[in-house]
């Protein structure tokens, strides 16, 4: 017997984003534009954490990794025209060392519109390169 009854299933799909950032380029931007660059890209909390580095090199590594993470998150948000302001994507570090993404403003609105329920990130750096990946979980419904 074939049932004509249809069912709605919740389906989770994934989006991934990745970005590479040159650490020396971020250090150059800080030297050239100072707080104008920091305030445009990073939240107060991010800048405060990064500036706790033991050296200017470590601060630049932290800033570059966060810049890469924000760009990776933009890639999973897939903006059609307007991109979210950088400060609406915040990388928050927990005392144990892992980081999570907190979205506010336009970034949060874009995520909600896309059905993104969660974004996980991972960051690393080596030499003059910082890298970050983002994985977004997208909830959608499917008629079965």
């Amino acid at each position, binding site marked *: 017997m074939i049932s004509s009854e249809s069912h709605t299933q919740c389906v989770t799909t994934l989006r991934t984003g990745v970005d590479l950032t040159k650490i020396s380029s971020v250090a150059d931007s800080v030297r050239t534009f100072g707080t104008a660059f920091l305030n445009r*890209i990073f939240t107060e909390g991010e800048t405060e954490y990064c500036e706790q580095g033991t050296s200017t090199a470590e601060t630049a590594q932290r800033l570059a990794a966060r810049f890469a993470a924000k760009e990776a998150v933009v890639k999973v948000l897939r903006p059609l025209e307007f991109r979210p302001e950088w400060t609406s994507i915040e990388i928050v570090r927990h005392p144990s060392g892992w980081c999570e993404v907190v979205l506010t403003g336009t970034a949060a609105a874009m995520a909600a519109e896309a059905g993104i329920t969660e974004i996980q990130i991972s960051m690393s750096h080596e030499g003059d390169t910082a890298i970050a990946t983002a994985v977004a979980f997208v909830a959608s419904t499917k008629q079965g």
Partner: protein
Amino acid sequence: MSVEKIRSLIAQHGRLSIDIEALKNADDLYRAGLTSHASVNLMLALEDEFDIEFPESYLKRGTFESINSIGMALAEITGDMSMAN
């Protein structure tokens, strides 16, 4: 004058993979090597030079796509339409 200034700032901050002299005003700057990070630097340099602040609504790929589109954005922000030429 402003086009020359825009070109000079792109040469200084755009980190393009080709010479600015080889670029036409309508050429795609992203295809010429402009990265997201370099576009931030360029935006901050333009803000310094023209004493403006790019509103949130100008944070889109199209704003920094070409020398012409930057000139148009500056004209709209400053109200000086001669910058669009």
